[in-house]
């Protein structure tokens, strides 16, 4: 038995948590009321503290938030920007939700995204194909495989020898990004670009754009993944085994779940989805191997998964909300001349409030 050698921590004793909630009002006892209530409460609290930060930065909170809102949903262009950003957050967030349900802590999505982008971009640049849809399809498959391998490496180490996946996945982010940097600096550098840029992908491989909304068709891939993941999580034996793994790995193993393979699968799936997000960014947004292809999407997606309470539908709403906060925040920082990092600060505060709020769902 290798139980004592793995990183798995014994799950906290759940029995003590399940005493009757102390709250009096009957409607408050409904789980979904408390679940939604706590998410909303955390959001409101974070926006209040965010208002203080805006004040501290010399802005006027109310008008700043109004600019944020109009920057997020005020025009077709704004909505398009919001949805374009929501695509990678949603795709990565779905994979992380699934993995986190099994208490497999993949925080290496950022690196997996870059590896996926690299695989997809190299293929689209290098393959002498003249059929657009084939090039796109192969590119995205390569992106999934790239991310899945980068994540699978972590999963294999964890499953086989119990190596802490949190640290390996995080450290591999740096390695993956250095690899990306090397490829766009030497073999696939765009000599015509004034700054350091990778080559651009041929026009036929670029994802088609929806005309009036400035958005690429990758949004349909992201949207289609929501019901798929919801089904997998809630209605399949696989999803059930993932939950067993998360609640009590020891019991899951005793009940006959092949926990090692399951851990491996979770890392491969969440890595593959992060890779897919990277591929979509290359073919649909940057159109080249761009060193700034991700603005920390791999980390932001962690917030998305947590805010979405690790459910597929919740992750969808969370991705749209966080994308709106980010896109609107960019507009706000320009209009009200506030520091751009204000949004990162608000998001950071938001996560902490979210955790506190989550505690009260269990009451």
């Amino acid at each position, binding site marked *: 038995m290798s139980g004592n050698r793995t990183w798995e921590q014994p799950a906290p004793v759940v029995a003590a948590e399940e005493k009757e909630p102390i709250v009096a009002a009957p409607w408050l006892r409904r789980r979904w009321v408390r679940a939604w209530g706590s998410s909303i409460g955390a959001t409101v609290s974070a926006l209040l503290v965010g208002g203080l930060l805006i004040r501290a930065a010399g802005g006027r909170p109310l008008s700043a938030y109004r600019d944020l809102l109009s920057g997020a949903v005020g025009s077709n262009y704004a909505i398009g920007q919001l949805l374009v950003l929501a695509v990678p957050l949603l795709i990565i967030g779905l994979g992380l939700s699934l993995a986190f349900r099994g208490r497999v802590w993949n925080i290496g999505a950022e690196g997996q995204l870059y590896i996926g982008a690299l695989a997809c971009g190299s293929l689209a640049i290098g393959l002498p194909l003249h059929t657009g849809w084939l090039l796109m399809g192969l590119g995205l498959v390569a992106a999934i495989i790239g991310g899945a391998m980068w994540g699978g490496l972590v999963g294999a180490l964890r499953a086989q020898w119990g190596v*802490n996946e949190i640290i390996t996945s995080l450290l591999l982010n740096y390695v993956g990004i250095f*690899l990306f940097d090397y490829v766009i600096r030497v073999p696939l550098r765009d000599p015509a670009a004034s700054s350091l840029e990778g080559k651009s992908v041929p026009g036929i491989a670029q994802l088609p754009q929806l005309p009036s909304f400035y958005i690429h068709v990758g949004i349909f891939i992201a949207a289609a993944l929501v019901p798929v993941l919801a089904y997998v999580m809630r209605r399949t034996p696989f999803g059930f085994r993932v939950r067993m793994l998360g609640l009590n790995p020891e019991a899951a193993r005793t009940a006959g779940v092949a926990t090692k393979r399951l851990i491996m699968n979770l890392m491969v799936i969440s890595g593959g989805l992060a890779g897919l997000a990277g591929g979509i960014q290359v073919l649909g947004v940057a159109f080249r191997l761009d060193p700034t292809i991700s603005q920390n999407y791999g*980390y932001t997606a962690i917030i998305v998964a947590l805010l979405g309470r690790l459910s597929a539908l919740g992750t969808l709403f969370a991705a749209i909300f966080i994308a709106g906060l980010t896109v609107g925040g960019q507009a706000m920082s320009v209009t009200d001349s506030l520091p751009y990092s204000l949004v990162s600060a608000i998001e*950071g505060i938001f996560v902490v409030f979210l955790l506190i709020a*989550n505690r009260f769902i269990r009451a």
Partner: protein
Amino acid sequence: MDWGSILGIALFRSGLAFAMPTALAAVGETVGERAGVLNLGLEGMMLSGALAGFLGDYWTGSVVVGVLAAVGCGIALAAITATLSVVLKTEQVINGIALVIFAQGMSQFVYEQLFGQGSHAPVVQPLPDIRIPGLGSIPGLGPILFNQNALFYLSLVLSLSVWLLVYRTRFGLTLRAVGEAPAAADAAGLHVDRVRWMALLVCGAMAGLGGMVLSVGDLSLFTADVTAGRGWVAIALVIFGRWNPLFVLGGALLFGLTDALQIQIQATSGGINSSIPYEAFQALPYLLTIVVMVIVTIRSRRDAQPAALGVPFLKEVQD
């Protein structure tokens, strides 16, 4: 490649200097984990400490104020962590990740608010090297160990004294009891959660100071990504050092040397014109940490890990 010029005294000297931030954080994390609390927010604590210490020094010109600011900031973040992990008893892994995101957002905001995004990054006066009389003139060892700045000595002494704290004091005994068998410790009349609070505060203070040793002691400046994953490396080093502060410190020295070595090789091999891509050298410390962690995890059974690591203590269950 001229290995003689690479493996010189300068290498070991800067290697030790670069090891100290990680060493402080890793040894601090050891204290926390020995009490049974997994603090994954280390990277965030280091980053905020780096900023707070930098600001304290930048504004007052006094290293002491910088140290106090860095330690205070680390303790404040540790208090948030303790509230989540010890009081509210939420998932410790998520608490840590959340704290890193929080600290990254806040420190970026504070820095940008104060200094803007301009290209002229403010710097502080580099700390003077202090040559310890007598010891400094030992050949070989002297210039490496005893001719460094004040923050280096402070870090070294603090890291070493944690070993004493854990193994030779009453508090250390309490700490280990709480991490190994919280229920028994509770029955013996110890306050499990109070000890865990203390351990986390010590951890935060050391991580915050570690950040400052990096920004003020080693680099004399702050950037938004100054810690570059050192907090995570530090957590890996705790596993590498098998939860013994001395071994953890040794691991940190090894990491610092690798870091100094890769910088040195990059410089001597011609930077961007080198035949081996410099990105490979940059990735080296991270890869080495992973490899070492894999080897240690495979070879050692987990018996060194505190038994109650990551498990919140619920007193109700014991009744």
